Structure formats: structure tokens, C-alpha cells
């Protein structure tokens, strides 16, 4: 079973497909769960404390805004852990503030730079594209098992 990073990291479809084809999806919920289940100082809503932007320095330079470094403290460990990645190009649902947008760009860049099997595709817009979408993911995950 490989650990597959999914982008968008909150994707329901990718999460379902990766689990269905026998692998473990790595999404933002895993990091958030770890944060909110760790005791410490109260820092709602997702227990991001001042330590997190410092931890994020591992993946983003010091001149990068703290919002991005804080977000990278959630995603960075998952990217390092990932054995493979599935990326949806320009997903409509992953819009947000500038912090989210820049984190998403950095995340996609890190996944492309990392030497792991990677599948990039777009959301389907018809039934026929749905077949190609599922087939591409199924074939990609099947090949992961062989590797």
C-alpha cells in the first residue's frame, strides 16, 4: 500500500478513488487531526500555534509570509511522506485567499520537483471524461503496486 498525496488535499473524489484502489490518500484532514489531537496551548480553530510557521521554514523561505509557512507545516510532512501524487490541474474548488493560493502553488511545485510517480489530470466535465479520469487513476495506482 502506497501513500498517495492528493491535490486538492481536501478532495472527496480523489480520496475515495485512492482508497478504493487499495492505497492510502494523504490529505489535509490527516495533518489537521494530528494538530487538534495534540495537547498544548489553546489556539482555535485548528491549533496552529506560533511554532508552526517556524516549522514551516523547512519548506518555505523566511521571507515567505507566515500564513504560507503555517500552512506548509500542515502539508510539508505529508509531501515528504508521500510515495506518489495525484494532482488535479487548476481545480475550481481550491480557490481561496492569497495565502491559500500561494501555498497551493508551492505545493504543486514541490510535488513536481519531488522524484515520485505523479499523475496530473483535470476534473471530468462529462461521462466520457469520467471514464478516462477513473481509468487513468486506476491504471496509475495499479502500476504503483508493481513498483
Amino acid at each position, binding site marked *: 500500500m502506497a501513500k498517495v498525496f492528493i491535490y486538492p488535499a481536501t478532495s472527496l*473524489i480523489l480520496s475515495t478513488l485512492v482508497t478504493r484502489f487499495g492505497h492510502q490518500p494523504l490529505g489535509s484532514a490527516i495533518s489537521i487531526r494530528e494538530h487538534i489531537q495534540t495537547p498544548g496551548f489553546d489556539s482555535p480553530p485548528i491549533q496552529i500555534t506560533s511554532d508552526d510557521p517556524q516549522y514551516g521554514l523547512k519548506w518555505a523561505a523566511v521571507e515567505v509570509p507566515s500564513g504560507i509557512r503555517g500552512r506548509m507545516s500542515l502539508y510539508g510532512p505529508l509531501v515528504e511522506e508521500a510515495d506518489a501524487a495525484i494532482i488535479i490541474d487548476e481545480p475550481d474548488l481550491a480557490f481561496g485567499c492569497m495565502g491559500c493560493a500561494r501555498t497551493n502553488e508551492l505545493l504543486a511545485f514541490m510535488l513536481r520537483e519531488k522524484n515520485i510517480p505523479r499523475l496530473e489530470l483535470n476534473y471530468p466535465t462529462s461521462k466520457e471524461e*469520467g471514464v*478516462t479520469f477513473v481509468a487513468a487513476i486506476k491504471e496509475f495506482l495499479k502500476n504503483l503496486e508493481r513498483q
Partner: protein
Amino acid sequence: MKPYVPQYVGTITKYVFVDSPDITPQDIATAAYEIAQGIMIKETCFGCQITGSPEDVERIINHLQKLDPYRIYVKDRGFPPGDARRCRADLGGARPGYLGHEYEMDLARYITYGLQETDRMTNEKLKITADQKVPRPEMLDIEILESLMKEE
């Protein structure tokens, strides 16, 4: 700063979504309650949320997926249900995050169709289908954009 004592440590929470003409969210929740054995289950408008040990949650999800294998979608959730930092009962208004679910559930019918079709395919057919290029509208050429700007 006050100390933070987490709740439900060691548990996982999963969303179960259903988009089916045969199964309703109520059926999903009822089926989950039947084998819950003390696991926390919350019925929602889209399916349910299940919180418990990873083994128990897995057991219930495997059971639910048998009800409609192609139309049940599952994903992880960071927070347990009813958490005051996320729950609408405490915050008021729409909960952040449902926008993404709403967007993806619109596409779920294509994925369902894709799953049904690919399950019937041979390995060779699957490989051919997977390699198919999906035509995309071309991006606006930068020179055309520049000329349009100059015309203004």
C-alpha cells in the same frame, strides 16, 4: 494562553457521502447504527460522519459501501462531529468546507459512471482508455492578449 486538552484522542472521523437514486442518507445512517457497537455516528444531509477507532470506522464503512458500491464516497475529516470550532450550531452560518463537497458531488455522477465502466474493462482496454488525451479548450495566446490590450 490557556491549556488545550484534546477530545477523542486516537480516534478518526470519516465522512460518508451518498449520491444515489436507491439509497438515502437516512438509509446510510440506519445501516451504520445497526452495526455501530458504540461508535459515534452522526446523520447528515449528505450521508453520515463516523467517529471511532480506525478499525471500527473501517468495519462500518466496508459495510456501508456494500449498499451501493459505486455511489458511496468516503473521505477523512480532521475534526470530530459537533466540535465547537467548526459546528454551525456554535458558529452560525454556513460551515467552511462544504463548498468543496458541493462542487465535487456535482461531478460524482461522472465518477460513478467511470467506476462502473472501468470495472467491466479488460486490462488492455483500461490501459488504452487511461492513455486517452482529453481535449481541453486552448488557452488565450499571449500575443493575442497583447494585441487586444493595445487595441483598447
